């Protein structure tokens, strides 16, 4: 009866109710969509950065992180790798050589970070191959292959199969140079990565730099929620000579923008909710105004104050819930569609490592959060007019 009465009462003013329901429908749909999109963007951006640049965990010799000194290699690397593989949550382990270098073409030269990787294991741990726009991954049929970004290719005016000279300081502190050939060109969503990174075969770089051991061991883990436990678990099995870092420590600058990106969705939602809250408040005030006489009559024939209060709260609840539930369903469908067709993101944000097209994922906790907010909002806002209604004297 209470719900039936609330339902009939809200339709006493069809236009007003329809307008509010439409606003709530689109408001909730858009808020849900925006929250999911922003959350997905931030998640994707972190995943991309992690998968491209660091993987979940990295091991270095203590001090290497400071200036990437090529001489700070990992002693007994094979031993360390064996120990790491014993950890139950470890999925893939890859060794890398990484140092600062200068890449030069006849046209130009740039400073960069050169990474020597073992193609077979590296493919399992990194996603660079997913972003190849030309050529192929470090192919075996080419001598001294190198992967460079589209940005680097443009700057150095290089094409596929062009020669590129890499100059670096070897472990004997001598300047050495090697000639590599462009095997593939990649374009990732991460501008800092693209501007800075070239990738070659582990053995080629080992030879060029006279390096016996890797400077970096990258680890991909099975359960990402156990990041910190796995990190400290591995650190415990190694001596203090080695430093184990997780990707969040390795990419500190990422987190700053993360909060900002999520803020966009939250801010949008707050605006929507304030707007809806304001109109609900107005409607409830009008309802009390219009029905003062009727409420006085109900009080006279014996409806309790509490029942008057709950009657109005129910009306606000039915009103808001129809809008919220239908809007959330629509937002859900929108997100599902977007997850298939993609959402174009305005260019210029690639500096932040955001992909030009996003495929948002649906986050169940966002739906729950939106429902909880809608409920709290309804009760908070409707309570004031309901309280005024409750104080109407028995009358007719």
């Amino acid at each position, binding site marked *: *009866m209470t719900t039936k*009465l609330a339902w*009939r*009462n809200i339709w*006493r003013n069809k236009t007003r109710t329809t307008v509010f329901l439409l606003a709530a429908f689109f408001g909730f749909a858009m808020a849900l969509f925006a929250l999911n999109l922003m959350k997905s963007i931030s998640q994707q951006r972190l995943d991309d950065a992690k998968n491209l640049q660091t993987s979940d965990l990295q091991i270095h010799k203590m001090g290497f992180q400071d200036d990437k000194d090529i001489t700070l290699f990992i002693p007994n690397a094979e031993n360390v790798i064996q120990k790491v593989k014993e950890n139950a949550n470890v999925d893939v382990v890859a060794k890398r050589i990484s140092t600062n270098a200068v890449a030069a073409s006849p046209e130009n030269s740039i400073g960069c970070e050169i990474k020597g990787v073992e193609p077979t294991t590296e493919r399992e741990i990194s996603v660079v191959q997913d972003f190849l726009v030309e050529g192929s991954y470090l192919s075996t049929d080419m001598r001294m292959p190198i992967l460079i970004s589209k940005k680097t290719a443009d700057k150095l005016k290089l094409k596929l199969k062009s020669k590129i000279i890499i100059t670096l300081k070897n472990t004997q502190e001598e300047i050495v140079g090697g000639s590599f050939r462009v095997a593939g060109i990649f374009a990732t969503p991460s501008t800092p990565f693209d501007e800075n990174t070239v990738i070659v075969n582990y053995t080629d770089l080992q030879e060029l730099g006279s390096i016996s051991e890797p400077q970096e061991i990258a680890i991909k883990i099975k359960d990402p929620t156990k990041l910190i436990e796995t990190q400290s678990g591995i650190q415990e099995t190694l001596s203090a000579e080695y430093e184990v870092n997780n990707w969040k420590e390795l990419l500190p600058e990422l987190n700053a923008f993360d909060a900002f990106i999520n803020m966009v969705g939250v801010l949008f939602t707050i605006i929507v909710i304030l707007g809806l809250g304001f109109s609900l408040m107005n409607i409830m005030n009008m309802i009390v105004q219009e029905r003062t*006489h*009727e409420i006085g*009559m*109900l*009080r*006279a*024939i*014996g*409806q*309790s*104050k509490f*029942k008057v209060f709950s009657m109005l709260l129910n009306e606000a609840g039915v009103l808001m819930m129809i809008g919220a539930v239908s809007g959330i369903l629509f937002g859900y469908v929108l997100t599902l569609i977007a997850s298939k067709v993609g959402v174009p993101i305005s260019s210029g944000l690639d500096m932040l490592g955001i992909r030009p097209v996003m495929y948002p994922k649906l986050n169940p906790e966002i739906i729950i959060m939106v429902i909880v907010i809608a409920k709290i909002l309804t009760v908070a806002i409707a309570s004031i007019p309901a309280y005024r209604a409750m104080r109407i004297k*028995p*009358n*007719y």
Partner: protein
Amino acid sequence: MNVIEIKNLRKIYNEKTVPVNAVNDVSLSFKAKEFTAIVGASGSGKTTLLNLIGGIDTPTSGNVFINGKNVSELSENKMTQFRRDNIGFVFQQYNLLPVLTAKENVEFIMELQKKPKEEREKRVTVLLTEIGLADKINERPAKLSGGQQQRVAVARALAHKPTFVIADEPTANLDSKSTADLLNIMEELNQKEGTTFIFSTHDQRVVDRAKRVIVFEDGKVISDTSK
């Protein structure tokens, strides 16, 4: 046994500015099954008296006893509950909830009392048949004439079998045919159900139907005659 007894009842409006003695030291009693009209000029205090008896308003001084219970002492919430369970109300207009059907309006108070569905249904059917609106059971008030609406209001006032019914000018907005119909119904239900009726009116035809007539002037009873 007196169903209602009022003693030295007084209601003064605007006590601090321009005091109006709307009910001025009135003592009266009503027995079970009485069918009483309160008459008097406009502003004589009929509505104020009925509101005091019905517990909608509180007296400045004096007491109202219902079935021996001093209701003037009840707290606001207790008074609301007392009205719900013991008194039926019929007002001049806007008695019914426009969003409810005739049936739903009649069973409204029983719903407030959380009476079981079967009991409600049975009572509603009896009453709507009694008032001759069995065929309008699912109509909303807007589809009923003024007279039909007042009849539904009477049915609602009686649905939960109150001790007495208060009706403030129930026929004021009705034509003579509807007025006669409503009075027939009130009289019939008064006889059948034994409910005490107190109603105010300006209409001589209504006064003629009453078994007891109390004439009011300036907040005082100037005559009280029973037939």
